[in-house]
């Protein structure tokens, strides 16, 4: 994985120094909260319901064991012994003290990590495919392209005060695990006419109040023009994106208002101005970065057959591992969704245990997924049983990947000042209730957001739940039919909302009806819904 050179380290160290200076000036009342708030937000520090929350960037969701141990240390030293992995592959700490934040950032910088641009109206953490470099279906590792973007977007002088936040995802595979159609910019590595690698560029997707799928504005962008073209997209957005209404300020509104073709034309026009300015690094820079992402040396003759006589182990292998591109290896997903627990939360001790596993068995790599789970990307099948036993003892061996109890949930009104309703208790109840039958239900993605901003990706849920405020009381809307994968679609509201018990009950009715409607036991809920439409489910819930 990528290692900082002296320039990268100097920039991160300078950022720590800058924030230390800013915090000191705020604590001395040299600057007002009004002036300070945007500064701390640009460093990922929010004031939430109970305390400050710090969002730490995990670029493209990749960590090594040293970094994960530091995240555990931070949880113990500066927080209350746990952290929350987010739907953007980051980690959040919930009980941070402003005065201690500079020391925390210095600790992070010591392991090549930071909180740059994890909030604010700027280019946020670049997200990617959690199976990068391990999945057989990718044409190339997307992370060098993501790292190049990370560097380009860090402290960008022109694009740090955009109309609104800006999220970019990069994937190297046609199987979309990075939800590229639901990002401000989605990038997919593709082959050009001569077999060379370039990028397919999608712009204007997103969730939130006005969910939209991103249209393609360029089928093939040569790598040599990558950054100048990104610069052109951002400049068109910065100049022409709406600033009069915060709910219409994302780039999706601009792209939709102009139409994808006109937006693409404006980007090309701007690009013609920018391209001659020498904004693109030479190919050697991408090659330098890519050299950090050499595929791990995995033995070609690792045994494929393993002892699956323990049924619990066999079930976990079947549900939570994926084939690796190298025979005899597997990709392990560690579920942070034990039914009844808080989705995405991990204790410091659990982080340490996973770091140990990564170091011992997984080429020293861990990935964070947008579904709030962790991944050991390069594991020998022969080691799976040992890994599983450690996970069992740490409460991390739940075999529920992509199943009913693997629920995405934002922190909701238990933590977040933007939330209108609690998300986590709904996720906990549903997970406990649905877990006993989830094997029969197969792939079922339930996603819960506590407000319209949609951090819980409710619009991309096979079943989505949106918490709203009804006169100070929590109320929940039910949405069906969304997907964030390569078959992306936006879930639609089924009907009137429910209270906390009502929504749990309504989801169970939807699932009961699905079981009577599915064409065969293999037909996923999403496919049944797409085949039969909303009516039978409406009838089941409201009829």
């Amino acid at each position, binding site marked *: 994985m990528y290692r900082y*050179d002296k*320039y*990268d380290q*100097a*920039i991160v160290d*300078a950022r720590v*120094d*800058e924030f230390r*200076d*800013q915090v000191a*000036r705020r604590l001395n009342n*040299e*600057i007002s909260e009004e*002036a300070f708030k*945007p*500064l701390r937000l640009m460093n990922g520090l929010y004031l939430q319901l109970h305390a400050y929350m710090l969002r730490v960037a995990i670029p493209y969701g990749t960590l090594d064991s040293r970094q994960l141990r530091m995240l555990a240390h931070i949880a113990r030293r500066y927080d209350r012994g746990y952290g929350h992995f987010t739907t953007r592959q980051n980690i959040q700490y919930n009980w941070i003290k402003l005065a201690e934040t500079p020391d925390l950032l210095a600790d992070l910088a010591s392991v090549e990590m930071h909180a740059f641009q994890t909030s604010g*109206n700027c280019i946020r953490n670049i997200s990617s495919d959690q199976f990068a470099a391990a999945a057989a279906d990718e044409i190339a590792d997307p992370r060098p392209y993501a790292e190049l973007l990370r*560097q*380009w977007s*860090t*402290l*960008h*002088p*022109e*694009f*740090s*005060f*955009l*109309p609104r936040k800006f999220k970019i995802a990069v994937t190297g595979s046609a199987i979309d695990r990075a939800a590229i159609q639901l990002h401000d910019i989605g990038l997919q590595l593709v082959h050009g006419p001569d077999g060379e690698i370039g990028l397919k560029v999608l712009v204007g997707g997103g969730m939130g109040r006005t969910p939209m799928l991103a249209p393609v504005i360029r089928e093939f962008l040569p790598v040599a023009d990558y*950054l100048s073209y990104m610069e052109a997209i951002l*400049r068109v957005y*910065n*100049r022409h994106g709406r*600033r009069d209404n915060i709910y219409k300020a994302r780039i999706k509104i601009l792209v939709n208002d102009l139409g994808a073709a006109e937006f693409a034309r404006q980007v090309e026009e701007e690009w013609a*101005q*920018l391209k001659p*300015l*020498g*904004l693109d*690094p*030479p190919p*050697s*820079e991408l090659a*330098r970065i890519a050299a950090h992402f050499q595929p791990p040396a995995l033995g070609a003759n690792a045994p494929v057959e393993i002892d699956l006589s323990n049924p619990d182990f066999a079930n976990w292998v079947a549900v939570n591992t994926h084939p690796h591109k190298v025979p005899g290896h597997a990709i392990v997903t560690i579920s942070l969704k034990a039914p009844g627990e808080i989705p995405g939360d991990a204790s410091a001790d659990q982080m340490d245990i996973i770091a140990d596993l990564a170091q011992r068995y997984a080429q020293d790599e861990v990935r964070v997924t947008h579904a709030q789970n962790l991944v050991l990307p390069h594991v020998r099948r022969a080691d799976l049983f040992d890994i599983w036993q450690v996970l069992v003892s740490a409460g991390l061996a739940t075999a529920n990947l992509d199943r009913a109890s693997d629920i995405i949930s934002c922190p909701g009104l238990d933590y977040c000042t933007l939330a209108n309703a609690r998300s986590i208790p709904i996720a906990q109840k549903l997970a406990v209730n649905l877990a006993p039958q989830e094997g029969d239900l197969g792939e079922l993605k339930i996603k819960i957001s506590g407000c319209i901003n949609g951090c819980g990706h409710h619009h991309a849920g096979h079943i989505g739940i949106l918490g709203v405020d009804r006169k100070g009381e929590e109320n929940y809307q039910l949405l069906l039919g969304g997907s964030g994968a390569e078959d992306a679609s936006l879930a639609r509201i089924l009907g009137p909302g429910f209270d906390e018990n009502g929504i749990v009950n309504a989801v169970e009715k939807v699932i009961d009806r699905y079981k009577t409607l599915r064409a065969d036991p293999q037909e996923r809920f999403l496919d049944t819904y797409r085949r039969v439409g909303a009516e039978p489910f409406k009838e089941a819930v409201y009829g």
Partner: protein
Amino acid sequence: MAELFRLRTDPEHTADAVALADYQPGGTAVRLEPADDARLLIPHLGALRRIDIAFPKFREGRGYSSARILREAGYAHEIRAVGVLYVDQLTFLVRAGFDAVLADTPIDRAVAERTLARFPAVYMKAADAARPVWELRERV
């Protein structure tokens, strides 16, 4: 009125800046509002000695693009940021092409100096002379 923070050594051009709509060819000072198209000034850059760019709100970011577009077009005289701006934005402003700031909140010179000196490297090319790290790496 706030104090001008200026990074230029040439004499200040003190003419009143006119609104873009009122600008006449040959005019030496003009003021761009956030929504104004900076490219409309390109035919007049030879005459202009100062371009003010307004930041009526902290969240306003279009001025960064305007300044950079003017520098890309070769304009070398003063570009002044005017409005709701803070010392902590100086690095962004300077890199985008501004060389003077008239901020509603006074800019503390000591803080400004350490702010501008802080980052030893930058990742991307912009309107200033700083060379991006990929260019420095290339030399090694």
